[in-house]
């Protein structure tokens, strides 16, 4: 297979970037998308150029490092698929593939296709945890949890923190990411104890670090590689409302 690649190149955070064109021949349909980029980089290095920087690590769709905006969609054309799981057989031969970094005020570009997602860290640090010290806990089976609820909490907990929801949202909103964490803990008895404080703190931080406001377009759900449901956003709205309205002042 042969492709024309249009790739965003930017030397560093302060440099002005631009799209570069590459022609890549002899691409195998068995290659994963990132292997295709490895292959491109090999050729760039061998011809004394500077390779395209992109983030990746586990290459099996679980670490959340990779994230490229491919032909108008975060993680490319397949649903429920991370960039590293995407294979070249999904593309038509002799076409152009445009590769861009995530775009959001909260995710500034660091280099080429690498963006800074530390805004997510800040939101998690604002409350994405259960305040339980090591050693302070009782036997795991002392609190039974309804299987359905536990499974639902798991559905929220599968978030890999890749940022595709922000990239896919026309508003750059991080509601799906934040709501997944808020919901996971709000559903489980262990997390319920501090659910009200958690949702307020995390939402406040989410706004502070520069994400946009949700307008219920649901593009996030559509492009989430783990298929996390916007039901969790509704859940967070509910949690937030009850925390604002029902929490006593004391």
């Amino acid at each position, binding site marked *: 297979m042969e492709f024309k690649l249009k790739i965003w190149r930017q030397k560093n955070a302060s440099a002005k970037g631009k799209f570069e064109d590459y022609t890549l021949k002899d691409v195998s349909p068995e290659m994963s998308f990132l292997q295709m980029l*490895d292959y491109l980089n090999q050729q760039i290095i061998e011809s004394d150029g500077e390779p395209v920087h992109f983030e990746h690590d586990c290459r099996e769709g679980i670490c*959340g490092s990779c994230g490229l905006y491919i032909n108008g969609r975060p993680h490319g054309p397949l649903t429920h698929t991370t960039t590293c799981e995407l294979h070249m057989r999904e593309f038509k031969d002799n076409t152009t593939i445009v590769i861009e970094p995530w775009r959001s005020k909260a995710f500034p570009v660091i280099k080429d296709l690498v963006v800074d997602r530390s805004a997510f860290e800040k939101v998690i640090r604002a409350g994405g945890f259960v305040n339980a010290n090591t050693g302070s806990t009782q036997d795991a089976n002392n609190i039974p949890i309804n299987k359905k609820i536990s499974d639902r909490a798991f559905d929220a907990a599968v978030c890999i923190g890749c940022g595709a929801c922000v990239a896919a949202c026309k508003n750059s909103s991080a509601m799906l990411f934040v709501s997944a964490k808020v919901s996971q803990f709000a559903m489980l008895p262990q997390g319920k104890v501090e659910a009200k404080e958690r949702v307020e703190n995390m939402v406040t931080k989410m706004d502070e670090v520069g994400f946009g406001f949700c307008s219920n377009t649901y593009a996030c759900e559509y492009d989430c590689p783990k298929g996390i449901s916007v039901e969790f956003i509704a859940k967070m709205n509910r949690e937030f409302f009850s925390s604002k309205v029902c929490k006593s002042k004391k």
Partner: protein
Amino acid sequence: MIKLDSKIPKGPLAGKWSNYKSSLRLVSPANKKKLDIIIVGTGLSGASSASALGELGYNVKVFCFQDSPRRAHSVAAQGGINAAKNYKNDGDSVYRLFHDMIKGGDFRAREANVYRAAEVSNYVIDHFTALGVPFARDYGGMLDTRSFGGVQVSRTFYAKGQTGQQCLLGTYSSLSRQIAKGTVTMYERRDMLDLVIIDGKARGIITRNLLTGEIERHSAHAVVLATGGYGTVFYLSTLALGSNASAAWAAHRKGALFANPSFIQIHPTSIPVLNDYQSKLTLMSESLRNDGRVWVPKEKDEKRHPNQIPEAERDYYLERRYPAFGNLVPRDVASRAAKERCDAGYGVGDTGLSVYLDFKDAIEKQGKKAIEDKYGNLFEMYLKITGINPYEEPMRIYPAGHYTMGGLWVDYNLMTTIPGLYSVGESNFSDHGANRLGASSLMQCSGDGYFILPYTISDYLSDEIRTPRINTDHEEFDKAEKAAKEKIDRLMAINGKQTVTSFHKRLGKILWDHCGMVRSEEGLKKGIEMIDQLEEEFWKEVKVPATAGEYNQELEKAIRVADFFEVGRLMCQDALDRNESCGAHFREEFQTEQGEAKRNDAEFAHVSAYEYQGNRQREILHKEPLVFENVELKERSYK
């Protein structure tokens, strides 16, 4: 001359840890604040160490090379996490878990360490549940368990096929909590380049800021390495591409002994190599073997589609060879059996290097829904990568480099041979002997970090309360920084023609062929020679583009690969020195008539710990004898 002292406490096995724990010295809360601890790595063991120590009030600094601690490769563990809870009333106990691990490790691990790992496993499950980790539950709301990887009890807790992810994210959340509290300072996107030793004690590290290329100094009263395994030495492995040995190797160079380097687990169920550009082998959880049946055609060079091959013409070789355990034999046994079939010409796929893992019977018996519930995400992953739907035709699998039982030698306190330098999780060698049992890595990593290290490191630090903050202007920091910079400059100056990755691939191939599932004296010697040549070529021919003073992913790789040559050589050396077969280490010369591993307990019931002597110098082998007082050394039989 280093003398190995494992510091195993006296007394009966079951009481060792609890008695020892209560005798360990403590540090008062007021003093903890004045003590700095560096932790390198944020996987399950690093993040759990950091959060537990942060909770205690130490001043902790944590480093990871990724953009976030949540990305560490613990995230990819699939199957589950063991604990001796006996929730199933099936006769499990701490002793039984201990015994399974010792036996699974082919009697090459320390009794006391393994027993302790089994003992704390129960606390680990309690703690994760308290952190909101959504483990699978049954309809009564109780935690569910499954049987996993070669044991006869059901003790594996799981969260679909994403147990590692859920455990890591739980640990990450507790780490984030400490970061928010200010007890832990997080340094992302840093590679550790060197260890700084002052007056014989580990006092700091040199790091490279991966975004700016800046070389930084960080000091502490103690350093903990939680840097994972070195399985990426094979290039193609189930590990993350960024996983590397460089931090542990820097410690090794500075005097920390490296134990059992040749003990590398080859995981039997990975998606096989599909093309030349492959950068990674994806694991299909071992749990699949609970319901999937492994087979190859009875005829050589079978060309028919697997669904067309009738039952009578299939060789379910694991069930045939090991009737008692069948498809659930331990990983090393399953891997070698697959290799044996493929080498004999019965392998399937274009390359002939794969076997079938078939779910037809399971789907017929349990229904598609039940299988989907258990393995849905794994089947989906397989479909995405190969384009083949495993609900309709068998998966193809082949063994791949996975987990390194070997690692930095540590005593019972998890301290290396360098005072003040600790190693936890996969980066140490301690609990898995010559082969790791499934679902025990998450268990060991979290046990080390949450429930062991906090006690033992406090004992060490109780002597350090009068030591003021370590000054990074010390000449040892100057020296270490200079050496790190020189190495980088040397790499940048080569300006050859070949990419770093091309060398890594070649190195991986050498090791896979000569120091993989089956080893021989001749092959290992040849392997060492080839590594020597390749290393020479690397230092003449490698090309690292751009400059060192910026974000440079090629330079990161080059630094890691440069160390892998040395790691690979030591692996081969150890495999040569160990004239027996045990666990994952299989020497052709030492096998039974049926082709099973033949252990030599009289001569090799010891830990091999190597002392660095300079690159290409024969490392000095120290032996720590293994004493078995509570288990009987037996041939490991799964027949």
